[in-house]
């Protein structure tokens, strides 16, 4: 951190919990922390599952209308319609996990551990826990349990606020 510049702060609202959508928030949070920023992540709705002790994330082809997986030198598009076929999401999840390994991309487990290690502040949304019936013991340690006001207070002090 440069001595002439004040520390910067960043917050991210994490709303999605599929394997693919888990990457942007954790990549940005860990990198920002590595660059000296104070980072807060607020996990709400489907994003809350990213805080479960046991991560078992999968891909949904539904709603990712531009998804195209590399296959034999070309790209295979995944129309939303294919998500209705049993086994397709499992197949795409396994393709993605293979790609992640092959291309030297970090696992979400590793990125989350890096976020914890670099003291990224994580807030689990209390309302989401009530709604989807998660107990604090289902989630990793070191979290703040809070609601919208807890997040907003942080956001008012941040230079960068992202919604993913």
């Amino acid at each position, binding site marked *: 951190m440069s001595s002439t510049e004040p520390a910067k702060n960043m917050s991210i609202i994490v709303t999605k919990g599929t394997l693919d959508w888990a990457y942007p928030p954790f990549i940005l949070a860990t990198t920002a922390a590595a660059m000296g920023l104070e980072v807060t992540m607020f996990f709400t709705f489907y994003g809350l599952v990213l805080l479960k002790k046991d991560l078992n994330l999968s891909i949904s082809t539904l709603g990712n209308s531009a998804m195209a997986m590399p296959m034999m030198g070309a790209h295979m598009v995944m129309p939303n319609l294919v998500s209705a076929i049993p086994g397709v999401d499992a197949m795409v999840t396994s393709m993605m996990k293979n790609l992640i390994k092959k291309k030297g*991309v970090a696992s979400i487990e590793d990125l989350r551990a890096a976020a914890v290690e670099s003291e990224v502040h994580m807030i689990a949304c209390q309302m989401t826990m009530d709604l989807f019936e998660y107990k604090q013991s289902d989630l990793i340690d070191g979290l703040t349990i809070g609601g919208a006001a807890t997040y907003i207070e942080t956001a008012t002090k941040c230079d960068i606020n992202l919604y993913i």
Partner: protein
Amino acid sequence: MADQMLDAKGLNCPLPILRTKKALKDMAIGDVLTVQATDPGAVKDFEAFCRTTGNELVDSSNANGEYHFRIRRKQ
């Protein structure tokens, strides 16, 4: 402590940056870390990382798809 080498070959964004930050933390101010990487995106990323953190990018080079970044810990 002294100058060090970090092998980040084969790793993709953001791992080279995260490993670099971790390595720099344990080094003395003034020491130089040489990072080896193969991620082409690392070129821009190491420039941005050094500008933002105040560490000095002494130089960077590329030979046959392998990048070397020399970073001097400033604080």
